[in-house]
């Protein structure tokens, strides 16, 4: 008897499941199910974002357990603070100078690697090596190399009469030092993307220009640059966004100092949040940083679309 009941029960359950499946998974509901992962990801991104915006209007401090709504007080405090504006200036200086230098050096390297020289594949592999170093390791390594008293750079420089520099430790050279390590780390990225772009350019316009007797400089200005514009914008987009939000390299290199010379918005927000537990003010700084990144990205993407459209024409 018992043995006969089990398949009976299994059959009922099976039928019930099949009916449920038919009712839920219909041609009308299938698109919603397909959207579900996308919806979950969107919520996963947007919830923390909107939560951060909300917290920027509170005095949230996890040491004291406070989290009262205080309106625009955090924003007023930040916008009237000289340190905040200084951090914005540092963030933009760092991002713009690092991106510009990386683009120029990357371009030069890409043009060199485009030449059909012996061992080109080896150069291509070697040039990528700095990009494989994690930024924190790069910063620590450079800190040792640029150490004022025991560092190898000052030591070697002394043979060619270079004055002993404080690098990360002097307010007037700290920014230069962190930009330099960013350039060392990320120029290969720019070079590889630009090289791929250069290699994908159509050969006919270049051949025609050469037949017409155009100089290399003319070809570079009037053909290479305009045709490569979409790729250049992609490099600028990636590097600018990453430089604007750069934290690990600056923090590991200088901790935002000395004399706040490298106190970018991200590092400043980190001090407020993780050392001083002033989360409300930290969120204001991060939201402003987000806004800067968003505006920059928006402008570059528009320019990229425009350039792409022109190239298609």
């Amino acid at each position, binding site marked *: 008897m018992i043995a006969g009941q089990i398949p009976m029960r299994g059959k009922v359950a099976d039928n019930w499941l099949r009916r449920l499946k038919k009712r839920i998974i219909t041609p009308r509901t299938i698109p919603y199910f397909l959207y579900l992962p996308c919806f979950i990801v969107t919520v996963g991104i947007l919830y923390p974002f909107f939560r951060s915006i909300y917290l920027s209007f509170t005095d949230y401090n996890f040491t004291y357990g406070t989290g009262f709504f205080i309106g625009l007080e955090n924003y007023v405090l930040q916008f009237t603070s000289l340190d905040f504006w200084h951090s914005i200036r540092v963030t933009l200086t760092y991002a713009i100078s690092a991106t510009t230098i990386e683009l120029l050096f990357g371009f030069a390297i890409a043009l060199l690697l485009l030449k059909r020289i012996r061992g080109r594949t080896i150069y291509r592999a070697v040039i990528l090596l700095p990009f494989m170093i994690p930024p924190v390791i790069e910063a620590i390594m450079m800190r040792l190399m640029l150490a004022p008293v025991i560092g190898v750079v000052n030591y070697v420089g002394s043979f060619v009469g270079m004055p002993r520099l404080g690098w990360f430790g002097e307010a007037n050279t700290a920014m230069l030092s962190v930009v330099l390590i960013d350039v060392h780390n990320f120029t290969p990225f720019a070079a590889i993307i630009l090289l791929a772009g250069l290699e994908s350019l159509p050969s006919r316009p270049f051949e025609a220009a050469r037949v017409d007797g155009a100089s290399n400089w003319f070809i570079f200005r009037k053909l290479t640059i305009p045709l490569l514009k979409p790729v250049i914008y992609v490099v600028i987009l990636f590097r600018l966004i990453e430089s604007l939000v750069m934290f690990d390299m600056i923090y590991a290199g200088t901790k*935002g100092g000395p004399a706040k010379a490298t106190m970018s918005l991200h590092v400043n927000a980190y001090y407020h949040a993780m050392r001083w537990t002033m989360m409300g003010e930290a969120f204001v700084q991060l939201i402003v940083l987000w806004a800067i990144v968003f505006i920059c990205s928006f402008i570059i993407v528009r320019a990229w679309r425009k350039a792409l459209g022109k190239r298609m024409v």
Partner: protein
Amino acid sequence: MCRKKLFLMSTFLLVGLLFCGLNASAVEKHMQGPEVADVNWTARKGETLTIGLNKHPFTESLRPLIPEFEALTGIRVAYIILPEQEYFEKLLIDLSSGAGVFDVYMTSPMFEWRYQYAGWIEDLWPYFNNAELTDKEWYNREDFITTVMNANNWDGTIGGGMGKGRWNAIPVMVEYYVQAYREDLRKKWGLTVPKDYHEWYDVVVKASEAGGPDFFGIVERGIRSWSTVHSGYFTGFNSWGQKDITEDLHAAINTKPAIEFTEIWVKGLQDAGPPGWPTYTWYDAKQSFAAGRFYMYNDCDFFAASYEDPEKSEVAGKVGYALPPAGPDGRIVSNMWTWALAMSSLSKHKEAAWLFLQWATARKTMVDSTLKHDNFNPTRRSIWNDPKVIEKIQPWGSRPGEYKEVVDLLYDKYGDIRWTPNPDVTTVGDLWCDALHEAYARQKSAEKALNDSAKRINRVMRKWRMAMGKKD
């Protein structure tokens, strides 16, 4: 009669011997290992404790001893060791997120004030007063140096209350700030041991000039952190009779004497310090001093253990130790730092954690950590005065016994925590450090830099003024 006398005398003798014996065993109990303690060490057998440790000489002295605790109790100990800044940040994340990874962690009064306010640190009194968990006679809490132990007690009063109320942590090492200088070079160059800060400036500049291009007169820790303020600078600042915070919880870092002292101190670093001073951590500066790159380092006294080790140092036997220079009115003081072990309020193994704390801070463990693994300076007076410890430190300094004499004075007379207790003390220190960096970089005068930092500190302290009903 004679027999009666003899009987009485023997009885007295017996009672006397018995009394002496009992007394001797009472004295000796705390001098012995944990096996004599009236504590059930195996009560928490099978549990696992996670200890958060900072990369520090104390940690190196504790690690080799941990297997003894595991064998004694059957409790397994896992530990996480991180460099100082990363350690405090990781700990803050662990405590604030409620993750509770650490059962026991290394801390210090300046951090305990924040953790106590946030409810992240366990009060140790109930565990100490529980006869089932603690053998008070064996543990001998009174053996700890009073100022050092008191620094880990706080009643929660903003601006005071240290040494009262909750017992947050047990000190495992203490440091004061001294002048460590190159005695061999002092004699060679005819320099004096500075008695005040004007003399200090002259000496370090002369040493820098005499040492040539690769040698510098002075080094101090310099990274952007409260710790840069804490050691040499804060010691001098207090010698000038200054306080960080006033009684009504306003910043007092920009008074006239404070500005005067800051100018001398920063000028010393500019004229006689290494380029890039703000990159120096205490560790970098210690290593560079031990490598013979600097004439003087005004920092922790216990660095002597490294300086005097010929395997780690090129200046072993060449260093002199002196009290910090005096302020204008002859006042000598030193700030103090003590690493301590605390129990997390989030721990799920609190009794096991207490057993660990009791064992790790017991006399026997601390003697071993000091004598075998160089944990200086000890926080128990009996260890500091132990003949073997005295013998070990006797040669340190420009003459035998110099180090002991200097540290004795710091223990008993000049050394104490000089910060004003408040949960935001490390924030105050970070903001203050900016002023030192700005003055050093010649971006601002010392006065302007200190005024600007004072404004920022006042903003941070505003909530405490409001909470304590003080004038804003």
